[in-house]
């Protein structure tokens, strides 16, 4: 059994995207954006591929001080049980991509994000 990640990150591209969102004043810091991206991916049923070439940006201790994210991921996704933070990383990657796409198309409205759930994994 492979041990879970102790750090999480994003691909270089997603990292730049998150940095852009932060610089645009959307998020107060990168960690907030990262957590939000995880939440958005869960809500919209998004997930990045397993073979993610992510670079480290956060220690999981900083990301998930109370273990809430880990518990949630483990509980919601059976396949995440073994390596929940590695799974959360894939969620964050997908969430950031979604956010930047909305932002670049001028459609990033938070009220919409909290509206009725759109599960993209089931829409195709």
């Amino acid at each position, binding site marked *: 059994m492979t041990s879970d990640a102790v750090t999480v990150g994003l691909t270089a591209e997603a990292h730049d995207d998150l940095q852009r969102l932060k610089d645009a004043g959307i998020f107060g810091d990168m960690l907030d954006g990262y957590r939000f991206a995880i939440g958005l991916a869960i809500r919209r049923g998004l997930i990045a591929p397993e073979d993610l070439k992510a670079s480290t940006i956060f220690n999981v201790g900083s990301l998930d001080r109370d273990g809430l994210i880990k518990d949630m991921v483990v509980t919601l996704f059976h396949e995440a049980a073994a390596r929940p933070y590695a799974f959360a990383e894939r969620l964050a990657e997908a969430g950031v991509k979604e956010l930047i796409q909305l932002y670049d198309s001028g459609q990033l409205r*938070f009220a919409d994000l909290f509206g009725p759930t759109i599960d993209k994994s089931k829409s195709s």
Partner: protein
Amino acid sequence: MTNFMPFYGRHAIEFTAKRPVTVIYGENMWGKTTILNAFRWVWYGTALDRFKNNIAKRRLVNWDAVDERNFSMQVDLFFLVDKDEFQLSRKIQPKYEESIPERDTDFEEILFLTKNDRSIKTSDIQPLMNGLLPLKVSDFFLFDGEQLDEYEQLLLDPDSQSSLIQDSIEDILGLPALTNAIKDLGVNHKEAAKRQRSLAAKDRAAKSYVDMAERTEAAIDNTEMDLQQLAEQRNTIIREIQSIDKSLRETAGIESEIQRLNDIQSNIKQLRDDLTRLEDERKRMLAGGWVDLVTPVVSQRLEELRNEQSKYISSLEHIGELHARLKQIEKLLFERLCPLCGQSYPENMMPSAERDRGEIELSLENVQLDQDRLNYIGDAIRKLSKITTSGAAAALQQIEENTRRSNVNLVGLETKRDDIQRKLEGHDQALIAENRSRHNQLMKRLGTIEEHIKEKQNQLQRLKSEAADYRNKIGQTAGPQLTRLNRELNIYESLIDIYTGAVEHLKRQLKVDIEVDATRVFLKLTTDPSYKKLQINERYGLTIIREGDREVPLRSAGAEQIVALSLISALNMNAVRRAPIIMDTPFGRLDPTHRANVLKVLSNMTHQVVLLVHSGEIDRGADIDRISNQIDSEYAIERLSGVRSGIQKSSYLAGGT
């Protein structure tokens, strides 16, 4: 006029005054106002542009003459005052020969006046001209119909700036005859008092009063000097305020735009601050917002888990029931007693009980209970229950709505700001602000000086009363030798009182007379039957009173002109000497009926009127025919080139053009 503005070379206009009205025709931009300016310039040495700013001397010289390197210009005026003949001449020429003058200081101004062919000392000329027609009321005699807002200011301005105009009006109405007499009596009184003190000083008993009287008189002299200085300061400030007022009036529209711009910029700043606050709030909400994002998914999962848990619990209960029943049947089979009544259980029913036991055992074998799964469900429910909404969704919705609204407002305000900034381009905003600030500063100083003047006047009154007291005491103690002087002093004091009372009486009477005469003219001019009279105020401003003794609060440009003409007429009727009135574009804002009314009363306004009119404001056929018996002569300004005009005697009435 020689080389005066568009008039190249020498041009003469003759006002014979055999009949009261001279008409000078000229289209816009051809030089009508120049003729008004020629009168103003020769009389006061100033010519004004349409913003009431002084025109530089270089611009007063005809351009064609300048092209020929002739920088000299001259206006001559021949006039009669009573039976005295005057010839006034004002000329400018380069200060240095062969030089090209640019600034006012590069010109030399030569002023020349003769009275009955005798030259007047140069230094006496301007005071004499100002005495005949004070500059401050010149606008009433050099009437510019296109500057009506100036008349509004002159006539209605209630603040102390108009006090100089009031003084000047009273000057031409003859008040100085009385006020000068008071001054002369004051000098005589002072001298008599001095003689009284000098005589009384020889008397030991009166000596102490003389000393005190002299100290008081010295204090009076000082206070009077202070008052004079304060009055000079006050007049200097008023003049500066008037000059700034002129600039501020010209830039009033710009100033209000600047104020609007400041308000808008302040609102923009407020909106930007609001947007920053909203952005901070949004970031704060987004930091915990991920929880709200997953809440629906978590809720759904929790529901599934709880359903599953509930099924497990139902199974557990069912197993418990089966075990209890099995235990009961086994007891029955072993004891062969009925579990309900304790009687022997019938043997024939035993096989049935054994069948039931078999079925229960089979059911128990079929029921599966995954304890690990149940434990997992419990653990998962506990963990997911910790994820509770932070309220971010509703808050973010509100924040986004507020942000959207603020951004819409911001764009609107920024568009308005840009529009105003475009309008303000080319205007010296700093200078306007400086003028406003200086104006406020001067008004404050004026208020302070006027308070000081009041204090000093009160002080002077007290000192004069003290001095009178000492004079009485001196008179009483010094005995009969001072009787004649005491009597002389008393006579002076009584005369001063009488004249002072007369001044007040005359002022009141003049206002009554002006009001009556102005009303008489006004009622002939106005076409509104509901207007009943004009009411004069302390500053000689006039208000229209309509039926029911009610004031007309706002006046149209036409009504404004009618009121101004009424005041001019009334001033002329009551002035010590009547003066000609020169009116530029007098009918520009009047309808035909008002115009006809004005023409009808022209000859009553004063003995000599010069009308400078353009074709759009007067009908040479109908209008001029109507007053043909009043017309002395007609002139027409001709446009000879873009910068040159000429003036010709015109003879429309004689059938010419």
